């Protein structure tokens, strides 16, 4: 078993004429927390989505846990079950209750029986701190609560990797903390996490590594301490000065 649970080799992604990613390579070690930052349109989300193949790279190889993705549906479904994803807009299933949101994929993908799926779902809701909302429907919850349910839904699959695509960008300011707290808890527990975010405070506190992207390229990759105190590239400096001013 390789130590690198995620390995992206020379990934490029074009949307028509536009090159969203240009020859990006990335390895993520088991149990590490990697935060990707960068201006909008820099390809951070595209890179994240290449990991679980919500975007198919135009060129390059994706290796997950020592297995090369070959594009077959069967392999893809199996691997995706092991990769939890949290979206900017939560994407909870609005026609299902909170509990059903969390049990559905457990039952039909993991083939767990109803009782087991339910027990795991309740554990996860407990963990994100909203067990009392199990029977509510998504639109009865606040944004922060919905995002915590989305995290619980991903965790219930007991994934090897968690991907977060700007998980707090659609939230009102007072709800950001409750989501970040859950993510900090996961980081402390040793989950492998790849996070696209604009929350620099979180990056500083939780990340093992920070990656700065711009124009579809990986500009810099280092520890949060070094990146924030002494960025080595001009573009990184410019971006940080713009973001930290706020």
């Amino acid at each position, binding site marked *: 078993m390789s130590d690198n649970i995620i390995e992206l080799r020379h990934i490029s992604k074009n949307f028509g004429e536009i090159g969203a990613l240009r020859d990006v390579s990335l390895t993520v070690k088991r149990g590490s927390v990697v935060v990707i930052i960068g201006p909008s349109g820099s390809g951070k989300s595209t890179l994240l989505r290449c990991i679980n193949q919500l975007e198919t790279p135009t060129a390059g190889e994706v290796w997950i846990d020592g297995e090369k993705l070959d594009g077959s549906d069967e392999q893809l479904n199996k691997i995706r*079950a092991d990769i939890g994803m949290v979206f900017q807009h939560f994407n909870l299933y609005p026609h299902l209750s909170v509990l059903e949101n969390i049990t559905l994929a457990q039952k039909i993908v993991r083939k767990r029986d109803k009782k087991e799926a339910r027990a795991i779902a309740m554990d996860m809701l407990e963990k994100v701190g909203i067990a009392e909302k199990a029977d509510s429907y998504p639109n009865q919850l606040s944004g922060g609560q919905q995002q915590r349910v989305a995290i619980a839904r991903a965790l219930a699959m007991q994934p090897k990797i968690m991907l977060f695509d700007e998980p707090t960008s659609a939230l009102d300011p007072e709800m950001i903390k409750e989501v970040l707290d859950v993510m900090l808890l996961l980081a402390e527990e040793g989950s492998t996490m790849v996070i696209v975010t604009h929350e620099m405070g979180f990056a500083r506190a939780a990340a093992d590594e920070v990656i700065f992207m711009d124009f579809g390229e990986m500009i810099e990759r280092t520890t949060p301490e070094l990146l924030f105190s002494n960025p080595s590239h001009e573009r990184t400096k410019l971006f940080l000065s713009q973001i930290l001013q706020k």
Partner: protein
Amino acid sequence: MAAIQAEQQRSFIAGESLEDLNPAALSLKKFDWREFPWWFVALIIIAIGTLMVILTSPSFTKAFNTIIGGLRVTISATLTAFAIAVVLGLVTGLGRISNKVVSKNVATLYVELVRGVPMLVLIFFVALVMVPALVTGSNKLGLALFEAGVLAESNFLSNLSIRDIPMFSRAVIALSVTYGAFLAEVFRAGIQSISKGQMEAARSQGMSYGQAMRYIILPQAIRNVLPALGNDFISMLKDSSLVSILAVGDISQVARLYAAHSFRFGESYISLAILYLTMTLSLSLIIKIIERRMAKNER
């Protein structure tokens, strides 16, 4: 006080009315005679008037009672054809959005062919060209299988006669084929109205495309298109009058026959119109109520 009473009465009637109600007007506390559904009052007066005529005039009663005999054919043709059209439409709608080249093109061809032909022409075509051609094909297949030694000389394929397929079934097939194409577009629009994030969330959990469709997309899409399906059901009920040209004994056909031999044209066609109106208006009332209830429970 008077204004409030008028508003209560108005909103009561408005609650019963079917169309063209401005929701903003409902919240007005003042009686607004421009927004009042006068057409509904007129409708009730017409209904009461005709009911009295039917009950008091023997020639009217006779016409009405004769024509109502075709109701079973109209209703069963509409119900059967609609059920088939829903299945056909769902499958075709899924085909239209599929990224498989064959399903996509077959589905699109079907929809475009059917939508470009008048329904009356399509009914003639299905009943008098397509079905006979299929029967001939089946006979040839039966013969070929006999010559190949698979079946006996007299088998169910070769014995099938065009006359074995009643006009009623042909009418139902014609209606289903036509409406299948319309409903395909309804389902396609319904599926495409669900945000892309739903499919992504489902696929990111390891569900297959089919599972995501079945458990996540379709339940939401079908809920969204229920009102449209209801309206298409009403359209089909009305369009079922076209199959009377196949002499299947629906209410339109019975009315035409009765009018032709009794020369009671007014009585026949007014009775016919009343029957259709009663069915369509009560159906659209039911749809309004369901829609309103759904809006209330909107999650």
